[in-house]
């Protein structure tokens, strides 16, 4: 068990050391990809008068799992993207968010334990601004320190626009994934996450 953990850890270290632009052709259909510091409409600061963020564009950053690529914002009305990030809001390409048929839900459990999407799981689409497929359960907000932390043990299960499945674990909301983020020093709205995309269309991640 210990050896297995060490192995996991080493493979993890290997993965996070990969640059996201790297385009390794893997022989297996499954690999864990880690995306570091995906900018999700970061701010340049706060308005000293009302504390509201300034410098943000109010635009989502769109992402496609199949080739780990960021999709241009001008393609927002296409099915080229699967998932979008802006501040702490995560959308999928469906319903009010886009023309696609993407869907998602949040599964409680370890990322590594999700080996097959249960048959009884219910995928949701983006119905309204307050009823999004992903919702808020992925993060925990501390009102005092004003820090968002991805809630451990929450795995996002996504049905992509191409009909294939992916599982995602959000790891950090701050640039450089600081060990103890400081709301006033560290830059928020930078997502670090890892995911597995199953290109063969099955619901299995093994």
């Amino acid at each position, binding site marked *: 068990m210990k050896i297995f953990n060490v192995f*996991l*850890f080493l493979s*993890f*270290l290997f993965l*996070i050391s990969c640059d996201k632009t790297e385009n390794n052709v893997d022989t297996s259909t499954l690999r864990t990809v880690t995306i570091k510091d995906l900018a999700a409409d970061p701010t340049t600061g*706060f308005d*000293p008068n009302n*504390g509201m963020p300034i410098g943000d564009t109010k635009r989502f950053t769109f992402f496609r799992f199949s080739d780990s690529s960021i999709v241009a914002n001008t393609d927002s009305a296409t099915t080229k993207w699967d998932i979008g990030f802006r501040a702490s809001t995560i959308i999928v390409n469906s319903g009010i968010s886009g023309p696609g048929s993407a869907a998602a839900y949040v599964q*409680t*459990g*370890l*990322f590594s334990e999700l080996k097959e999407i249960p048959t009884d799981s219910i995928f949701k689409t983006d119905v309204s601004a*307050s009823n999004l497929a992903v919702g808020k359960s992925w993060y*925990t907000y*501390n*009102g*005092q*320190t*004003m820090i968002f*932390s*991805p*809630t*451990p*043990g929450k795995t996002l299960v996504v049905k992509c626009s191409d009909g294939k499945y992916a599982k995602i*674990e959000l*790891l*950090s909301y701050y640039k450089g*994934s600081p*060990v*103890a983020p400081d709301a006033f020093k560290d830059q928020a709205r930078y997502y*670090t996450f890892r995911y597995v995309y199953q290109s063969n269309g099955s619901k299995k991640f093994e």
Partner: protein
Amino acid sequence: MKKKTIAYSFLPLILFCLFNNLFGQDSLRLDEIVITATKTERSLSKIPLPVTSISAKEIHALGSSRLQDVLLEQVGINIVPQINGLGNGLQLQGLNPDYTLILIDGEPVVGRYTGSLELNRITAGEIKKIEIVKGPSSSLYGSDALAGVVNIITHKSLTNKLTAQIKYAERNTLDASVGLSYNKANFSNQIFYNRFSTDGYDLSKNIYGQTVSPYQNNTLRYKLSYSFLKNHEISLSAKYFLENQNNAYHVINGLDSIKVFGDGVIRDWSVFPSYQYKLTNKTNIILRSYYTEYYTKTNLKELDNKSDYYNDNFKQTFLRPEIQSTCTFSKKQNWTLGSGWIRETINTNRYGSGEDKQQETYYGFIQHEWIPSSKWNVLSGMRFDYNSIYHKQWSPKIAAQYTVNSLLSLRASFGTGFKAPDFRQLYLNFNNAAAGYSVFGTEALKPAIEDLLNKNQIRELFIPFDAMTSLRAERSNAWNIGASLIKSKHAIHLNIFRNDISDLIETQTVALTNQQNFIYSYSNIKRAFTQGFELNYKYQITKDLDIQSSYQFLQAKDKDVLENIDKGLVFGRDPVTLQTYRIKKSDYIGLPHRSTHSGNIKLNYRIPYLDCKINARLILKGPFGLAGTNGSVNGTSINSSDSNSNSIIDKYDRLVKGYGLLNIGIQRDCSHWWDIQLGADNLLNYTDPINQPTLIGRTAYIKMNFKFIQNK
């Protein structure tokens, strides 16, 4: 070399003392009369409940000037900083400060700030003794006596006496008291005055303001009793307290970073008349009425532009007339009956509208003491409270003691406790526009939400409008099982406790507005337990030397968290590797601000022929965790212990390190009418400005005590 010689020259003296005193008297069996546990005077060894009594002599030896300094040294009592670091609260059996009732001469002290009572308000100079009843005592005292009761009994002397004490400590801290007892014929008069002033202290020099700002206070108490006819006695106790504060501190709250300053005033007075009539030798009736008022005025201005930052006039009143009767039917049976009425009011800018908020309680209690044989002692009781907010509450209790033989006695008790929702939880109406949130008490919530709904300002309701109901009282069921073993020079006391608490009131997110502001309120949502044991061992080594050590083992956990761990739903994330793992039951440490292990060691030594007493006390606290929302202390935010993002305290988190405080004092009895004390508290100068802002650094002091007794 020279040091060694001195040490050796002392050795024969020490040995002599040891042998000389092997036949010393058995001072461990001295029995005391206590009143708090049964509301009647009973000897401590005959009470089937865990009761501790701290005598005036012990308090004198500590050289303490405020109540907090005395309580800090008792095992099983943890002094915890309040939210925002303003003052301290008292934690008993692992329960928060809100759950311990603090009484002076049997009557409650009011004026709590976010649930805890500032223990530095109470002077140690007028304390004759402190009785601490651990475990719920709601069967006699009603609300708030969930963890226990601390009763401060003030001096009353039947001889004519003049006492005076003066203490000077570092940081320009001056504490002076004078007390006068004058008795003539059937009259007894007691006057006490104390003046305390301090420059406060600063643990974070680089931040504007001090950790504790300077303050000065005055306490004046007058007690009168008059016996007339044969069996009648009337008495009166009146207290006046005034404190002035000179505040200056740095507020960092979210995006706010404001330096504020201003004066503060605390004014607190009470009047307590009572009448006692002994109908027969076996029956008495006591009528008493207690009224107290607590008033604070806060006027803070911003340093930069001198504009008002925060103004509040807070006034709380408490009125309680009560009748109590004790009937002794035989040597074996004893009944105590009582009933009363309480009216409490609060007025503060924080509760909106500026009008008095009021609640009333009617109550009655009954207690039965039964001594079926010389070995058994059974105590049972019940209290009924009817309140205008939380309605009815029954609080039963049963306790028994079994004396096995002259050395060993066993006791067990079961009781329930409750705490009524406080005014803040009912009426708070607080809006922090800068940080973007509002908090409403449950009675203020519905109108506020309705108003926002009508204005179409609510984006999302997290709980249905109809589910926003009144609060219930918080409740506990508790077991205490104990044993006492006293054999010649050794005394061991053990108490095992378990408190199951339900309907705990917690803040709850109610709604989100269109401006993205969260609205919070309170709800009876949490369940928790505390359990552990307390072990106390005293060894009278010689007549002049004794050692006492105490240890508390404590577990305090959230039951819902445990349930979720059981279901495998609690995880943690390593902040460095970002790996996620599942939390096991054994990983979960429990509620914040509680050390699993704590204890103390006290040594008292009287140097014969020199009239000198030396004491050394080591107070030990094991590591503990801090909650996520601990606020900021003088501008430095307190980090949560939680480092793996799961909002609970577990073994992966950064716990606050354990620590020890060493206090040392020397007292010399210069003559029968005065003594002098020299000492230092926190000799090792342990401080932790961020996590433990209420720990002052090393404080050396000098104290003189005078006592003139009129010979009759």
